[in-house]
């Protein structure tokens, strides 16, 4: 069974039809990249997966999104619990104005975990997992704003991983970073795929080619093509995909 199954999804911002009849399945512990030009709907689809678009007024959704076979837009769904299961990393590093330690511990604390020892253990574990531990272990009490942009983004990844999600959504996680930091993030993605299913939105096609197993190409709210990354980048079925990945538009 697929980890995530998107079935006939249509989505509107007011009158604007942002997603048109999108269907795709994502296997467990796969890395799936969404690519496409700006405004194609790839970020919208990503944010539907943890119901982040609930925050935007006057939106409408039809179709189904299933996580482990469960409809996440069901009336019974506990959105806060869903977001714990489906973590998210944003385009710009957005650490809280708190210490490095408190940033990572935040997700645990809001989920009612009080055990100090457990929190400390988990913070170390996830910071190690995000390849950040050696850089910050001596200044856990320092403000997260004191870190560099790349470090901040890895901190945000650690923060998302601390609550042990089964899916990690990444919305252009490296677009605000320099090439070296980007390389570190990509390496991290390859590490994390052993633990979680990753959906990544990216503008950078080389990045999609480097990190993902499958790629979905979106254009004007429609999913044009979805398949193994190798095939999409070497032998796409559709002409639009071919044009986009060869840089003819976008």
């Amino acid at each position: 069974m697929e980890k995530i199954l998107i079935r006939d999804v249509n989505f509107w911002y007011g009158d604007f039809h942002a997603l048109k009849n999108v269907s795709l399945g994502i296997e467990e512990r796969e890395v799936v990249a969404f690519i496409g030009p700006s405004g194609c709907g790839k970020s919208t689809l990503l944010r539907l997966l943890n119901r982040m678009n609930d925050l935007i007024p006057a939106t409408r959704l039809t179709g189904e999104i299933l996580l482990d076979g469960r409809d996440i837009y069901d009336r019974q769904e506990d959105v806060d619990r869903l977001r714990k299961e489906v973590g998210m990393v944003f385009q710009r590093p957005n650490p809280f104005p708190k210490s490095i330690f408190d940033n990572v511990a935040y997700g645990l604390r809001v989920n009612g975990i009080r055990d100090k020892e457990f929190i400390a253990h988990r913070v170390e574990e996830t910071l190690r997992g995000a390849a950040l531990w050696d850089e910050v272990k001596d200044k856990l009490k320092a403000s997260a704003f004191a870190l560099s942009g790349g470090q901040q983004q890895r901190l945000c990844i650690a923060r998302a991983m601390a609550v042990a999600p089964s899916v990690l959504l990444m919305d252009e996680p490296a677009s605000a970073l320099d090439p070296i930091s980007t390389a570190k993030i990509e390496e991290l993605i390859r590490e994390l795929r052993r633990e979680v299913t990753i959906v990544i939105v990216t503008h950078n096609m080389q990045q999609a080619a480097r990190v993902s197993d499958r790629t979905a190409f979106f254009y004007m709210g429609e999913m044009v093509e979805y398949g193994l990354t190798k095939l999409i980048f070497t032998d796409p079925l559709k002409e639009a995909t071919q044009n986009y990945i060869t840089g003819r538009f976008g």
Partner: protein
Amino acid sequence: MKKLLEKLVASIFTVSGLLTSIVILLIVGFLFSEGAGLFRNRIIDPGYVLAVNKSNPVRELSPEQIKAIFDSDLVDWAEVGGDSGPIVPFRLEDADRYFSEAQLGPNYEHAGRLIAELIERTPGIVAFVPGQMLPPDAEIAFIEDRTISFSEIFAGKEWFPTATPSPLFGIVPLVTGTLWVSFFAILFAFPFGIGVSVYLSEIASERTRQLLRPVIELLNGIPSVVYGFFGLVVIVPLLQRVFGLPVGESGLAGSIVLAIMALPTIIAVAEDAMHNCPRAMREASLALGATQWQTIYRVVIPYSISGIASGVVLGIGRAVGETMAVLMVTGNAAVIPTSILEPLRTIPATIAAELGEAPAGGAHYESLFLLGIVLFFITLAINLGVEAISSKSRS
């Protein structure tokens, strides 16, 4: 031609800037020069002396003691460091009681000699009379007349600037009154202000927010005398009934009116700060499974805490300097407040109420300017506080 015009405009701006700065500095300078004059005043009314019997060892009395003596609150010389014996206060008006009109003469021409003799033969007397009236050869002693001391003003517990023979300029009751009322005003305004800011910024829909914000800002535009009137007509009688007070005019009434007046400032500034909390910050919190409330109190409020603090301190600033509304509802008793339900009096209210009855250049007049200086420093400290808080948030 064009260059000349530009130069002209530039010089006009320079001159107007200079003029404004000079005027402001002059006002501050005026405040200080007038206020400092109080320290050159003597404790006994100008032109008068306090005469005592030669045998009386007491030569020094503080203004408080003088006032107590003439109010008959102090009745024995032992209490002021002299030999035990009753104090007999004497004012010029009392001459009629001691002497007949014939003795005094039709134009009081004998009064000086008679009073001098009275002082010579009454050991317990302390007479408050014009110095020129007493004959220079009289065998009498005088209470030392010195200038008002710093501590009598800044540590003085009684404000009684119209008392004779010795006015009291202790500003402690006025300063405590001001701080007391402001403190309670903030105590009331803080929870409501934060509550409304959180509601407007986090919970209300955009439409409600667009509707409510101007309404709250409108509150800032209502003249303070209207708030005072409202307080006098609604809050004062209400407090009187609820707490069973002899008078409803009290520090509490002032605090409530001030809290209402400080609310718009607190709400506007705090709401702005919370609204400026980046969406990315909220989304990061929600994406970790935090509820809306957890996001508000763990992320939004800590993020905007310096803005909230600025709002509160600005609100305090408004409360401390407010005059009219407080004057109308606090009852204006210049005593050190022991309970918020008692009447009290603030610095601005004192200045406004008493300036009209204080003769220009007199000690009373100068004492009001000194109060102005004290208020100036309190608000200066508050403004520096705001500056410090907001610069801390910027870094």
